[in-house]
């Protein structure tokens, strides 16, 4: 067996591995990286208009989805993205796996690494989990959300959605409203929007706006009236499940909805509204707003698929962007 293994590897793996890169934080990206991912996502969007939507691009590659927190849209969109690119996909949910039997994350990562996956997509309730997986495996690691830290593919799909709607991001004003303290989506989006030249204003009650966050390149207002100036109102989920018991971040959800809920009366006509989901209708967002034609919420979900295709493709294929786009179009 010992001398068979290298032979199999050489035959079945692509001739050379691309340089090992991860997508753990938006802070790791340059503006050029984001531009490249946006154009790749646009190219994939065009392929999805065809009748047969599957591309052979990542045939023979293995993508492992390792989800330690419940997720509908992120896990399903990573799975579908990998399948559309013809990769082999393995999706592991925390429930019912060795994870529940108190195996350490390191051991879980080592176990999965034994299958030589090309990409490990991980969602975990603790900050730093993707770093640990990157340390103990040879796979490219994609962070699908680690605690309150980062959710980079969410921010990228949000950029894509905004870019499609407005034809550009530079100079736009985005108000991010609500529970910033517990939100990895907010952190990734503040960085991503600032990187692309948008103005960001955070709006919410003081205990839910972390001290010192202005240093990330955003403004802060405690007054919901501040959302009126924005081109896009990005509503965050009130993350009661992450709040420590008895910490009194807000006196009540009723008072929160009253003071900071995004309602039709607080919006200008034509202002676009986004939400990463899942929504608490009647708390951070009024149903009339969520269901209005100005809400881009379903488009965010669709963007998720093409952006995650772009991210997987970008990590595994290593050609200049023009060639990548050309290659996708050729196949399409």
């Amino acid at each position: 067996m010992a001398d068979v293994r290298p032979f199999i590897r050489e035959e079945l793996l692509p001739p050379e591995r691309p340089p090992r890169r991860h997508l753990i934080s938006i802070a790791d990206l340059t503006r050029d990286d984001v531009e490249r991912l946006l154009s790749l996502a646009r190219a994939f969007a065009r392929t999805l208009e065809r009748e047969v939507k599957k591309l052979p691009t990542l045939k023979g590659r293995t993508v492992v989805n390792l989800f330690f927190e419940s997720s509908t849209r992120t896990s399903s969109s990573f799975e579908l993205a990998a399948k559309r690119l013809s990769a082999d996909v393995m999706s592991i949910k925390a429930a019912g796996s060795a994870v529940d039997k108190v195996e350490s994350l390191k051991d879980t990562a080592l176990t999965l690494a034994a299958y030589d996956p090309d990409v490990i997509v991980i969602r975990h309730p603790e900050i730093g989990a993707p770093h640990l997986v990157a340390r103990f495996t040879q796979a490219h690691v994609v962070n699908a959300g680690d605690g309150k830290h980062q959710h980079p593919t969410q921010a990228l799909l949000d950029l894509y959605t905004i870019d499609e709607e407005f034809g550009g991001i530079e100079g736009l004003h985005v108000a991010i409203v609500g529970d910033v303290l517990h939100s990895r989506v907010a952190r990734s989006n503040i960085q991503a929007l600032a990187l692309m030249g948008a103005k960001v204003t955070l709006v919410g009650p003081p205990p839910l706006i972390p001290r010192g966050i202005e240093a990330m390149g955003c403004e802060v207002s405690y007054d919901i009236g501040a959302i009126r100036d924005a081109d896009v109102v990005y509503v965050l989920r009130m993350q009661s499940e992450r709040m420590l018991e008895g910490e009194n971040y807000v006196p009540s959800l009723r008072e929160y909805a009253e003071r900071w809920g995004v309602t039709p009366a607080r919006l200008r006509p034509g202002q676009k509204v986004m939400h990463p989901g899942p929504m608490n209708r009647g708390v951070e967002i009024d149903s009339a707003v969520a269901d209005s034609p100005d809400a881009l919420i379903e488009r965010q979900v669709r963007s998720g698929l093409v952006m995650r295709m772009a991210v997987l493709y970008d990590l595994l294929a290593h050609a200049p962007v023009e060639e990548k786009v050309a290659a996708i179009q050729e196949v399409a």
Partner: protein
Amino acid sequence: MLYAKSGEKSDLVIRGARVLDPGEGIDAVLDVRVDGGVISEIGERLDANGHRVLEAAGLVLAPAFVDPHVHLRTPGREDEEDLVSGTRAAAAGGYCAILAMPNTDPVVDSAAVLGSLVERARAEAEVPVGFFAAITKGQAGGELTEMVELAEAGAAGFTDDGKPVVAPGLMRRALQYVAVAGRRIALHEEEPTLTRGGQMHEGRVSAELGFGGWPSIAESLMVSRDLAVAAYEGRPIHLLHLSARESVEALRRAQDEGVRGTGEVTPHHLCLTDEAVRSLDPNLKMNPPLRAEEDRAALIEALRDGTIEAIATDHAPHARHEKEVPFESAPFGVTGLETAFSVLFTRLVEPGVLPLATLLERMSAGPARIYGLDAPRIAVGAPANLVLLDLGESWVVTEAGFRSKSANSWLLGETLRGRVRATVADGRLAYSA
């Protein structure tokens, strides 16, 4: 109050070193002779008389170090550290005495537990060890320990380190009663409702990384409270591992008003800021957390001007599997005994931030003074407590190089300047390389 295994005292001649003892006012190239563990002669061209000779030209000979804050994890977590490995690590770091914290399993809160530690130290300790006892039973913050009996059984001081004494009334009682025991009380200052869910210093870095914040005021509020209690009772207190500018300012003000408050600071708080946490390396997770640059600057200034008298490693060994987890679930604490001098020499003395003499004083006589121990000194008739330092040597910190059982150092892979070449602890050559 200090216990070590009994052994042959050394006969040595240390030849040609730059002898540097800030307390004795010595800074000259001299020979030092040790007879039966006692410094017998300091001069030029001393006879070897058959003693072992340490050729030390180009090296610095200084009073050995005293670490007032070490976790030896014994009893309970001997897989992380024990008396042998911890005291070997101390010797390799240049220490002639260390004080061990009582947050073990079981907690050192009774004469029985303390007695068994003293007995083991007498059999196993490579350098003298003192043991703190807890302020409250089980460090639970409820009932006081039997401090007088514990002091008679050899407790070096009292602390609930790892936990604050939350209730002000209990804090006051402890301070009143410890007077009878004749020992210093040492305080871990942390207001627990302000650190709930906290993982790192609250500031721009925690905001960006999404960590629960551990604000400076969580420390400085308790520092101010306890200095007020100390002032009211007219009793001394010692403040463990200070980290925040506000705490240092409160201590300086109190000292100016005549309060007998002392403080210590760790090498990591003197060298690092919260910016380092961006790496999410669990070996950068400590309690109190790494703070901002202005805090670090205030700590260095306080060390220079003597507001803070002692450098303490807060050596906190952790098993590898406990640190190989996401930052958020990692335990607090890093090791430090074997790197303290070198990292402070490299990062503070060489760049000209801290004079060498000040560093040596704060690592030796400073901590000894706080707890009423005899300060190591280079003087005829004094017990030999000596460290021989090669300030020119560069070395790389590696796991394999540690004598400690644990390797959760924030310095792995770093190149440091200045290395301990030999340590004489209570008259015995405890380490030489």
